[in-house]
């Protein structure tokens, strides 16, 4: 009886041959005409990359890094207890004599 490894090797070889044995598809003149009709319908191309292409190229690429940065920033702020609204509020409550609204402007 043949070993499992041998059978696996044979099967991989067969599948590889099946992949390379795929016959090419021939397209007719009608296909070419359809492609060129679509291209003509699109009109002349824009010389520079469009806004959406730039958006796709740069913004989406930076998305993972931005998310990580936001998460790390949130963790840091929670750890060091940085709450600016709360600090301003406590300043008003605790130091009502020296700090008035007039001093703020």
């Amino acid at each position, binding site marked *: 009886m043949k070993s499992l490894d041998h059978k696996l090797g044979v099967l991989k070889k067969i599948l590889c041959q099946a992949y390379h044995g795929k016959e*090419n598809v021939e397209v007719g003149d009608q296909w070419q005409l359809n492609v060129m009709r679509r*291209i003509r319908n699109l009109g002349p191309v824009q010389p520079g990359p469009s806004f959406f292409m730039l958006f796709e190229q740069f913004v989406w690429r930076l998305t993972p890094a931005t998310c990580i940065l936001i998460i790390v920033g949130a963790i840091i702020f929670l750890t060091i207890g940085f709450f600016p609204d709360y600090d301003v509020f406590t300043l008003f409550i605790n130091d009502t004599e020296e700090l008035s609204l007039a001093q703020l402007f």
Partner: protein
Amino acid sequence: MQNHPSRQSDKEIIRRIIDGDVNSFEYLLNKYQDHVLRIVTKHIPYNEVEETAHNVFVRAYQALPGFKQEGSFKQWLSAITVRTCYDFWRKQYRSRELPMSNLSERHRDWLEKTLSSESNLSFSEESREKEAGELLDWAMSKLSAKDRMVLELVYLEGNSVKEAADLLGLSVSNVKVRSFRSRKRLERLLTDLIST
């Protein structure tokens, strides 16, 4: 008098297209349609090849202004073709428009017969059978769209990891990890199939 397109380089043709001569694109279409169809046929089911190749040329036309003139147009077009094939599978997997292929008793019989055959010489004949192609489709359908493309480019077509990464627009390390993982997954699938 205008030069005949065949005497001009791809770069000159591309410059003319960008300058507004849409009809010059026909030259690129004629020149590269066989190349594009060869790539698409390898990755996409036969009944979807024409439409996918059509989309490749439309995408290439729209992206022409972004083509860097120092590179080869053929290589650039190959990358667009491979990414269009990847997008095809991504959409298919998301919408599940294509039914997940299942292995029938016929496939199992064929597999048993093929693997128990004593002569290795007969494999090349038998592998041409429809069942081999269907078995490959079944195995590939178990992988994600990205893993599928990586496996086809690296292991079945013999591209280097760097070449596959350039074609798919992924990092080399990503392709390396995916190719290893998808190959192991495929081997597990096939091992399970043989041992049952």
